[in-house]
């Protein structure tokens, strides 16, 4: 594959990826920080996400409201995301306007105010964001399952954080977090689109190189001990619908087993779409859809993992058929897992999974934002090379690999089974 990007490390440690794409007059610029909810100690859960919110609250140069207005006026789209392993900020703008995005991102790498009144106002906004999630049965169940799966590793809490901590954290907690992790040597910049790389790099040097490096930020790393047996839990809440989640401890993205497991994901649950922008495909011919939805044990199902630094989870989610029990779906899941453990999958099934992945990557390549996304995202849990060689690594998977990983990971001792049980409610449907 011809190399069509550049990677440069500035003198302050900032890594810069550039990729010229001249298909539309757009540039998408992302700054990724190696910090997320996995870096949060008890008492400070949610600090990474709340810090991300505060990054929109202004610097001396760009006061709070001025930022939004400036980007919107230029027709830009901007956003930020906080995840377990990383936090990222992006601007996708008309090519001749991207300088604003570059300037404001350089500015808020070092100069955000964290005004105490803004911190207080944002406290209730973040709590409101969490309360919106709490309205969703699947959030309540997912939070309980994740917590049960990780006793030691900080993947145990949701990115949004626990309410107790959202109520008690202070401005100084947030500011300290910002000052510790938002340093150029802890960041990756990824820019794709309609620009000249030489000029773009010069401009990035001009804006970012004056920002001093900081001490290398520590990362929390407390390895989760092996789970010693199946964990079962139930969450009760309003509604009429029962949900089932079955989560297996899973290797990190950089582990070689991630690829045969990705083939297995396609076969069992339909291919996961790893793009942030770009469509996926349906899963109606997947083995589990046929085993549980076609057999009317559940009315819907999905499965997927996340590309993470440390071992995380692969989660199957089921919406149980109103006249069935979740145990029946669980038994059908077990039978399908037994099948992939007992019988090698065919070469044709592997080839199918590769074609599906190729198509999904093609859909993602329509978007310049998505192409910039990959350069930074892959660096957060592996390297950009992980993305560039993804299809090759899938192509190298053999039926024996698939069988081996099915046996190794999909064991009851390695899983948490969570059920959302609806409790009776006297409320009835609104009638016309």
């Amino acid at each position, binding site marked *: 594959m011809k*190399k069509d990007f*550049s990677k440069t490390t500035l003198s302050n440690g900032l890594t810069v990826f550039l990729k*010229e*794409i001249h*298909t*539309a*007059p*757009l540039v998408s610029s992302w700054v990724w920080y190696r910090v997320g909810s996995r870096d949060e100690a008890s008492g400070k859960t949610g600090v990474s996400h709340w810090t991300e919110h505060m990054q929109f609250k202004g610097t001396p140069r760009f006061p709070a*409201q001025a930022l939004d*207005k400036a*980007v*919107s*006026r230029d*027709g*830009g*789209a901007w956003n930020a995301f906080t995840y377990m392993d990383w936090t990222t900020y992006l601007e996708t703008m*008309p090519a001749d306007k991207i300088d604003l995005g570059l300037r404001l991102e350089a500015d808020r790498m070092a100069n955000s105010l964290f005004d105490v009144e803004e911190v*207080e*106002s944002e406290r*209730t*906004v973040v*709590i*409101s964001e969490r*309360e*919106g999630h*709490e*309205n969703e049965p699947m959030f309540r169940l997912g939070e309980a399952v994740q917590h049960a799966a990780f006793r030691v590793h900080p993947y145990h809490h949701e990115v949004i954080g626990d309410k107790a901590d959202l109520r008690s954290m202070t401005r100084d907690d947030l500011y300290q977090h910002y000052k510790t992790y938002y340093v150029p040597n802890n960041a990756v910049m990824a820019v794709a689109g309609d620009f000249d790389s030489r000029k773009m790099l010069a401009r990035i040097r001009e804006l970012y190189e004056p920002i001093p490096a900081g001490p290398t930020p520590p990362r929390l790393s407390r390895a989760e001990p092996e789970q010693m047996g199946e964990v079962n839990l139930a969450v009760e809440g*309003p*509604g*009429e*619908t029962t949900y089932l989640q079955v989560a297996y401890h899973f290797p990190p993205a950089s582990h070689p087993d991630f690829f045969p497991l990705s083939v297995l994901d396609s076969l069992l649950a339909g291919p996961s779409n790893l793009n942030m*922008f770009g*469509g996926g*495909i*349906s899963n*109606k*011919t997947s083995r589990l859809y046929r085993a549980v939805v076609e057999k*009317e044990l559940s*009315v*819907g199902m999905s499965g997927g993992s996340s590309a993470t630094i440390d071992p995380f989870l692969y989660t199957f989610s089921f919406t149980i*058929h*109103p006249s069935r029990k979740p145990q029946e779906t669980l038994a059908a899941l077990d039978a399908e897992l037994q099948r992939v453990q007992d019988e090698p999958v065919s070469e044709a099934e592997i080839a*199918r999974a590769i*074609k*599906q*992945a*190729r*198509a999904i990557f*093609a*859909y993602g*390549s*329509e*978007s*310049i934002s998505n192409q910039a996304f990959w350069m930074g995202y892959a660096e957060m849990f592996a390297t950009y090379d992980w993305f560039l060689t993804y299809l090759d690594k899938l192509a190298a998977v053999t039926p024996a690999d698939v069988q081996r990983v099915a046996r190794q990971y999909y064991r009851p001792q390695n899983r948490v089974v969570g059920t959302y049980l609806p*409790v009776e*409610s*006297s409320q009835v*449907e*609104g009638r*016309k």
Partner: protein
Amino acid sequence: MTAKNVKPADLRPSALPGPEDILRETLPNGITVLSRANFNSPSVFVSGYFASGSLFEPDEKLGLADFAASMLMRGTAQRDFQQIFDALESVGASLGFDSGTHTSSFSGRALAEDLPLLLELLSESLRTPAFPADHVERLRAQLLTGLAIRAQDTADMADLIFNQIVFKDHPYGRPDDGYPETIRAITREDLMDFHRRTYGPREMVVAVVGAVEPKAALERVARALGDWQNPNQEARPELPPVKSLKKTVKKHHAIAGKIQTDILIGTVGPRRKDPDYMAASLGNSVLGQFGLMGRIGDVVRERSGLAYYAYSSLSAGIGPGVWDVSAGVNPANVQKATDLIVAELRRFVEQGVTKDELSDSQANYIGRLPLSLESNVGVANALLNIERFDLGLDYYRRYADLVRAVTPDDVLAAAAKYIDPTRLAVATAGP
């Protein structure tokens, strides 16, 4: 090291679609085909709509159009459910149908090499669905579960009762996904009859965008759908007028055990083809979109910290849409948030927007256009928009001028015409 990218200006499609790069042709059976090439990615996107929808449903069978559309790919005269999805999923393609009020729609994507397959399955699903009896019951259970989930969703339920208030005694007040008792009442015979009466090529539109020459795309569509005829295809039902509210109407829908309440406050807005649509749309941007959710976001989120989301939206279609403000707040703050929102609506209607605010939103509308047209999906949406509302093939080339032509007085007039702060629908759903 950077590999040098050649930048041949003539290979780069014009950023904005226009008459010389959009193919538009109507087949003899009434299907209009729109196509525009994009060879930047090896994929192709197909979408469109046809003149069947929930307007054709009787009250006691609400959800019929949705049920029928969801059945199309559950088996056809040629293939069963698993064969249809095996053909699609084996090549990483997708196809789906969705019912609407006036029209129902479809969309699908594939690698360009698989476009013929995609169109073949589109044609089969539309023309020869088999409505297998076992799938009717399987889907019914799925739809009923969907309604049970809807009944627990504060945003969905606020939306449902909001529409019941603003579109009282009007077909727009009926939920497209029906109610449990209407879904239970629908028979396989109803579905087949609905298909026979309302599915046909007349007024159907197909857009194909991606790595295919438009002429080849037209030929492919003609081959797949050009010989479709349905002499029984009924004319679209007339739309009765919407009665405006006499006073503010408030309704709360209680859902026990919820943590947050969703609020919807608003009224009936313009139709997409109304001359003041652009003024209303730009006004709405100032009110609750621009930057971080406009004035509404500023007051409810930024200054009061009451909500994670608080914004306004304007949905204009073939008939009048709704112009409303949404917010998700703690149940203790419902009154406070409602008062803030109504006060903002009053200010908007009485004072309109400033020149600076308007020019900010105008710049935003013009500047964001290339991004919205970046992907095949974005271009296909634009082509369908042009067709559905007779905007003209040069619409996106004229767009900047149309946006710039709106004045603060135009916005004020549109605001005052549609929004009366003393006659609002206020719908809430929560604990």
